[in-house]
C-alpha cells in the first residue's frame, strides 16, 4: 500500500479496471450465489441470525440481504457481539443501517460476559477479539440460534480457505476441520442435532477486491474510517497503531499524524490502519490491486502470534 508499487502491477490493474464487463459478470455471479445462500438459511433454519458489525464485509452481506428480502422484510435479526472496544463511528453507522433496513438488532457485549465472570482478562488492556467467542456462544444459547451467518471470506486466511459455506458446529460451538461435511453441488446438508448449530458464510467466495468493486458498483455507504483521513499513529512491529484512549503511545514511541485508512475494522486495540490517500472506493480498488500485503497481515496484531492462531480460535468457537 506504500509507494512501492510496481509499474507492471499497476498496468495490470488498469487493464483489469478497463475490462469492466469482466468484473461485472463476476460480481453478478457472486451476488447470485450470496442471495441463494441467504434465502437457503431463511428457509432451512428456525432461528437464524446475521452477524453484523458495521464493517465492509457485513455491509456487503446486508446489501445482498436487502436485495434478497427487501427493506423491512429481512427474516432474521442482526446480531452484534460488542467488545466494548469499538470505533464510535462504526457503532453509530451500524445502528443507522439497521434502522434504515427496519431490521431487528441484537447487541451482546463482552463486558457483560466479564461481569458474569465467564470472560476473565489476563490484563485490562488486552485485545478482546478472542473473547468474543464466549459472548457469541452465550448469545447462541440465550436465543437458541441454529444458524449464524457471518461475512468471513476464504481469501482472508488459509484456515478460512478450508471452511465450508455451511459449517457445522458441535454442541460446544467447535469447528472440526477434519470432519467437515462434503458440500455437494448446492445441496446443503443443514440437519442438526439438538444443541448444535451452523456457521454460514454467504460471501465465502468473495475476495477483498470483489468486495470493493461491489461497494463501488452498488454505491454502498461505509463508515468514514475506511477512507483516507488524518490520524495520530505510532509505528509498532512494522504496523501503524492508532493512538486512542485504549492504545496510548509508549514512552519511546513518536506520535505522528498521517493520512491513513482502515482495510478492516474490529477491536480498537488490535486493528491497524494503513498509510493511504485513497478517498473513494475507486481509489481503493487500484490500491488493492497493487497491494503486496494481505488484509490481515497489514492490519491485525492478533493473527500474527502463530501460523495456526486463526484455526485454533475457530475450533474454540470463534467466527
Amino acid at each position, binding site marked *: 500500500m506504500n509507494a512501492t508499487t510496481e509499474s507492471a502491477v499497476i498496468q495490470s490493474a488498469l487493464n483489469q479496471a478497463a475490462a469492466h464487463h469482466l468484473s461485472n459478470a*463476476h460480481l453478478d455471479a457472486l451476488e447470485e450465489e450470496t442471495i441463494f445462500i441467504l434465502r437457503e438459511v431463511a*428457509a432451512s433454519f428456525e432461528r437464524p441470525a446475521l452477524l453484523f458489525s458495521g464493517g465492509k464485509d457485513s455491509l456487503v452481506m446486508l446489501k445482498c440481504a436487502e436485495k434478497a428480502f427487501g427493506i423491512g422484510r429481512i427474516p432474521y435479526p442482526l446480531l452484534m457481539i460488542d467488545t466494548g472496544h469499538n470505533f464510535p463511528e462504526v457503532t453509530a453507522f451500524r445502528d443507522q443501517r439497521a434502522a434504515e433496513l427496519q431490521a431487528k438488532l441484537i447487541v451482546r457485549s463482552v463486558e457483560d460476559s466479564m461481569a458474569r465472570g465467564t470472560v476473565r482478562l489476563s490484563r485490562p488492556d488486552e485485545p478482546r477479539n478472542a473473547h468474543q467467542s464466549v459472548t457469541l456462544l452465550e448469545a447462541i444459547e440465550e436465543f437458541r440460534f441454529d444458524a449464524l451467518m457471518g461475512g468471513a471470506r476464504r481469501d482472508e486466511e488459509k484456515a478460512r480457505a478450508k471452511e465450508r459455506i455451511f459449517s457445522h458446529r458441535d454442541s460446544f460451538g467447535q469447528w472440526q476441520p477434519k470432519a467437515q461435511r462434503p458440500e455437494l453441488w448446492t445441496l446443503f*446438508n443443514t*440437519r442438526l442435532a439438538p444443541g448444535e448449530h451452523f456457521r454460514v458464510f454467504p460471501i465465502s467466495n468473495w475476495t477483498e477486491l470483489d468486495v470493493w468493486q461491489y461497494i463501488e458498483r452498488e454505491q454502498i455507504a461505509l463508515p468514514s474510517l475506511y477512507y483516507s483521513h488524518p490520524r495520530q499513529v505510532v509505528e509498532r512491529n512494522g504496523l501503524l497503531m492508532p493512538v486512542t484512549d485504549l492504545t496510548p503511545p509508549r514512552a519511546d514511541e513518536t506520535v505522528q499524524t498521517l493520512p491513513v485508512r482502515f482495510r478492516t475494522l474490529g477491536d480498537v486495540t488490535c486493528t491497524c490502519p494503513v498509510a493511504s490517500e485513497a478517498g473513494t472506493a475507486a481509489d481503493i480498488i487500484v490500491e488493492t490491486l497493487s497491494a*503486496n500485503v494481505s488484509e490481515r497481515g497489514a492490519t491485525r496484531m492478533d493473527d500474527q502470534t502463530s501460523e495456526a492462531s486463526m484455526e485454533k480460535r475457530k475450533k474454540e468457537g470463534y467466527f
Partner: protein
Amino acid sequence: MSDVLELNRPVSSSAVTASQAPDTGTALRFITCGSVDDGKSTLIGRLLVDSRAVLQDHLAGVTKQTHDGDQVDLARLTDGLAAEREQGITIDVAWRYFSTEARKFIIGDAPGHEQYTRNMVTAASQADAAVVLVDATKLPWAREGGPAQDSDALLPQTRRHSLLAHLLRVPSIVFAVNKLDALPDAAGAFARISAALTRFTQEAGIQAVATVPMSALKGWNVVGPRADEPGWAGYQGPALLELLETLPVTGEAQASLAFPVQWVETPQSGDSDTARGRRVLWGRVAAGELTAGSQVQVLPSGQRAVVAEVINHVRQPGAVLAGHSAGLKLDRELDISRGDWVIAAPAPVADDSFDEPTPSYAVTRELQAVVAWLDDDALTPGRVYWALHGHRWIKARVKRVVHQLNINTLAREESHDLPANAIGRVELTLQDGIPAVPYAESRHLGALILVDSATNRTAAAVLVA
C-alpha cells in the same frame, strides 16, 4: 465399457476452438486432483506465486532460510490446517482465488489421499474443469523406459480421480504430467504416459481436453513454457494456465422451465408485492426461462397454473434465465411449499400433429442411481437414509446394490454393500415421488445427497441413472 460410466456420456466436445469463444467474464472454478505427493499443492502455489496472487506476508510465512538462500515451500501456502502441516498432506479442499488479465479463477485444492475422496467429490461437484496430476516419478515403467502394457500402468488414484471427475460431469478434464524435470528423458516418459492416459480414457469413455507435461517445482509449462527450452518434453501446446484461460464455464442450456421452490414468502399486511394474499415463491431457475404468462405445472402434485408475475433481485418485473434467482406469483392460490418444482406445463398435443409432446418430468419413487459413497460407515442395504433433492428432504431406502465399480479394471463386481470411497450402482425407493431425470441431462434434477439419519453426516453423492 461399464454402464456406470455410460450414463454419464460427454456433454459435448470439450475441445475449445477459436469460433467457440468461451464466456471468460465469469470465474472458472477448477480443481486439482491426483495422488498424494503428486504436487497438487505445489502446482497451486506455483500458479498463485507466478500470477502474483500471493502477498508478501503470506510468502514470508512459507519461506525458509537455507544455505542456498531463501526457499519457498509452496505447499504450505494452501495447507491451511495444523494437521495438514504436521503430516505434510492435504486433508480438505482449500479454495483459492487469483486472476490473470484474461479471467478470474477459483481453485479447489482437493486432497489426494483415498481416505479423503469425499472432499475431492465435494470439489468436483462445483467445478467447471479438473486438472488431474500424474506424478511421472511414481511410475517405474516410465522412469526406466520400459513398455506400458495397459492402463494398469497408471496409479489407482489417477484413475479414481479421473473417473470421479467424469462421473460428476466436470465439463473439462486436463491431465498434467508433473515432475518430468526429475527424469533424464522427459520427452520419452511424457510420450509413454500420454499413451497410457489415452488408452485409459478411451476405455473409460472420458474425453480429456489436453495432456500437458510440466514441472510445478520449476514452473515449466505452468504459467508459460520453459523459457530456456521451447518445446521441452516434445510438447508445443499451451501451458496449463493458458489452457485454463480458454475453457468454458458450466451452463445448463435446457429449453424447458424447471424452477425449484426454495423459499415461500408469506404476505405481510399492507404489502403491495403480496397483495391479495398472493404468496411469492423464490428460487433459482434450474433450466429454461421464467416468464410471466407461461403455463406451468407444480410437481409432485401436478396442479396447473399460469405465472402471473416474475420479479428479480430488486423486485422489478422481468424474465429470468437459468442460473439466476427469481420470485414468482401464480394466477391462483395453490398449495405450494419449499421443495416443490414449478415446471413448464406439458404442451397439449393436437390430434393432427405428429410432433412429440414436450417431455415432462416423470414423478418417480423408484430410482436407479450411481452413488459415490463418502461416509466411513458402509452403505447398508435396507437402511433408510435422508435424501435431499433440490430443496426437498425425503426418506430413501436402499433396496440393493446392483454392482460396485472396480476402479482399476472398470469391471462391474457383485457387492452386497458399498464401503467408504466406493462407486457403485444402487436401487433406491423414496418415501415420496420426485421429478428426477438422469444426471447426464440435468445437474439439478439428477443429483441428490444421502444423509445418515443417525449421525447427520453426508453419506453419498447420488447421480440418477
